[in-house]
């Protein structure tokens, strides 16, 4: 086992990995930019090394700075978390070159699965269904249009490389095809410097269901069942759950088998996730390979809470050469877990990311509820990085209990000083379609007006009374001193 691990990340995932290290008796080494010198992950690690100024390109995205920190501290392994360098095959290769264990799949696997085209080809080869589609080698508008017509409408035209929904066009019928192709090419070229387009059949209102896989150095690969991540806003997941309300045991076995087959074909090691689009539900549903994420997912806790497996610990054990401790048959799902992502963002203003001081921040603590947080009261949400504040995961023996627990926890989770999507998440968990488990990737956008309506309205008189009371009496009555503090003293990194 490693004596020390450097965590090349920040926020909640760095905190999560530090905790796994502590439980294993491994020294944890945090890295931080100037914006994070008082961040929670820095406070919790056994050691901490500054790696550069606030911009990620010069700190958390700088492989060189991170390898230098690893050399200085004698780290034996690097955990990349998710985001930043987690899917950089070049960084994984540099780690190997520097004699450090990269806690993730081999560099070559990251490179191959990182290419949509190569990953799709591999999936087809492994017998895993893919969404019918093509990247015509002849990229003239007419050839692309012809390929689209062969697939059947509606189709999606999108940049061959890139992501985030940029340049993606949905085309309902042939008439609007050529203008869409032209616009997609312009946007692709502008955004990614590459106008190559890809057309695929549109799966209407699909579910997003993914399978967690993990492989060791000894040839064993297992899956840890599915997660449903259909609730997304602007192509980013905000609520995930396991099991999926749409997946039956037979479908689960088929999807799990497909994911393992692909992982095996890829020579996969460590944790990874095979994402599928799911069309329909139940035994007859069809699933299509979407992409493989060669890293830990943000939503890994719902798998942990339902399988009893610690995925971060498993990543470390496997990277150190240890065997997976369980066979496929020994793994079981129990109960239901729901994760909500608490973001510093304003749902009433187009989900605009928010930054600011955490004047008051109290994580709920109750049975069946886990909070993977990356901040502390008195800290701040920086403008420099992803606005994820924390993930709240609720487990229950039934989906409805998990949902109620998540709601109770969100209602006991005050975050003051920076606007979050907490109230929006409450509205979402109370929406009839969520309660019924009728999810698809378009739900959040389709129901946004309804969800926002619940947030409108003037403060109730009780809230105004609390505000007034805090003003007059807090300093005098509160034995622990006033909660009324000047937020502007905290505005390090505040925009304006």
């Amino acid at each position, binding site marked *: 086992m490693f004596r020390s691990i450097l965590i090349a990340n920040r926020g909640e995932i760095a905190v999560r990995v530090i905790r796994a290290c502590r439980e294993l008796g491994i020294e944890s080494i945090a890295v931080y930019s100037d914006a994070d010198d008082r961040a929670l992950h820095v406070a919790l690690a056994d050691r901490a090394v500054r790696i550069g100024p606030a911009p990620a390109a010069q700190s958390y995205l700088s492989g060189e700075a991170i390898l230098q920190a690893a050399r200085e501290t004698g780290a034996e392994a690097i955990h990349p978390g998710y985001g930043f360098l987690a899917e950089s095959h070049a960084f994984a290769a540099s780690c190997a070159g520097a004699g450090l264990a990269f806690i993730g799949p081999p560099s070559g696997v990251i490179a191959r699965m990182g290419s949509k085209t190569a990953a799709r080809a591999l999936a087809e080869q492994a017998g895993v269904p893919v969404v019918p589609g093509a990247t015509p080698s002849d990229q003239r508008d007419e050839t692309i249009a012809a390929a689209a017509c062969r697939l059947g409408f509606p189709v999606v035209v999108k940049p061959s490389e890139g992501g*985030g929904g940029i340049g993606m066009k949905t085309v309902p019928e042939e008439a609007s095809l050529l203008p869409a192709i032209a616009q997609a090419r312009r946007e692709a070229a502008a955004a990614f410097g590459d106008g190559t387009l890809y057309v695929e059949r549109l799966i209407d209102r699909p579910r997003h269901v993914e399978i967690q896989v993990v492989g060791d150095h000894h040839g064993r690969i297992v899956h840890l069942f599915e997660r449903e991540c259909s609730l997304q806003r602007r192509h980013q997941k905000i609520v995930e759950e396991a099991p999926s309300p749409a997946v039956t045991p037979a479908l689960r076995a088929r999807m799990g088998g497909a994911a393992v087959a692909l992982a095996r074909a890829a020579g996969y090691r460590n944790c990874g996730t095979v994402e599928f689009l799911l069309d329909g539900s139940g035994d007859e549903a069809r699933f299509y390979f979407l992409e493989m994420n060669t890293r830990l997912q943000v939503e890994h806790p719902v798998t942990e809470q339902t399988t009893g497996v610690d995925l971060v610990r498993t990543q470390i054990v496997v990277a150190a050469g240890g065997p997976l401790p369980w066979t496929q048959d020994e793994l079981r799902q129990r109960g239901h877990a729901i994760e909500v992502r608490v973001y510093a963002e304003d749902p009433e203003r187009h989900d605009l*990311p928010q930054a600011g001081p955490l004047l008051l921040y109290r994580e709920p603590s109750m049975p069946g509820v886990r909070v993977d947080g990356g901040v502390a009261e008195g800290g701040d949400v920086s403008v420099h990085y*992803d*606005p994820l504040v924390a993930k709240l995961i609720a487990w229950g023996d039934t989906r409805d209990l998990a949902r109620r627990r998540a709601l109770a926890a969100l209602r006991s989770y005050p975050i*003051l000083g920076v606007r979050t999507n907490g109230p929006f998440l409450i509205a979402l968990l109370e929406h009839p379609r969520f309660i019924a488990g009728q999810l698809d990737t378009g739900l959040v956008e389709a129901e946004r007006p309804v969800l926002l309506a619940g947030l409108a309205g003037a403060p109730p008189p009780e*809230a105004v*009374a*609390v505000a007034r009371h805090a003003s007059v009496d*807090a300093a005098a009555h509160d034995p622990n001193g006033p909660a009324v503090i000047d937020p*502007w003293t905290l505005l390090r990194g505040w925009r304006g």
Partner: protein
Amino acid sequence: MADVIPIGRGQYRVIDGTRQRTAYAAGPPEARWVFLDGRVYVIDVRSGTDVARTGPAGTREGGRTPDEDLALSAPMPATVAAINVAPGQLVEPGDLLIVLEAMKMELPVRAPRAGRVKAVACRPGELVQPGIPLVELE
């Protein structure tokens, strides 16, 4: 009217007979943040109004940048993913002007009001800093 009793640092009990709820509050009187029943309010204690909704948007972030500049600038360091307008073009409120990308997120910059685009102050692929307007409206 409910009674309010402080019960801890920033924590209050709102009591109405035997019924009660827990609330939290923090921040200066002109923008006091209150958490109650899972909802968050930012209240100007003098007027009792919701600062977030009734005040100009700019005051919420400190009143340093005018509302329009704020609406037309990146909320965080971001890459310009797409520019949907050109100088001289007329826009309506809510029109998508620019798409930014940061930390795997797409951030739309929309027109806060109707007007004519005077200038576009960024290029596709450019890394832009927060607080600097990316589009100028006449």
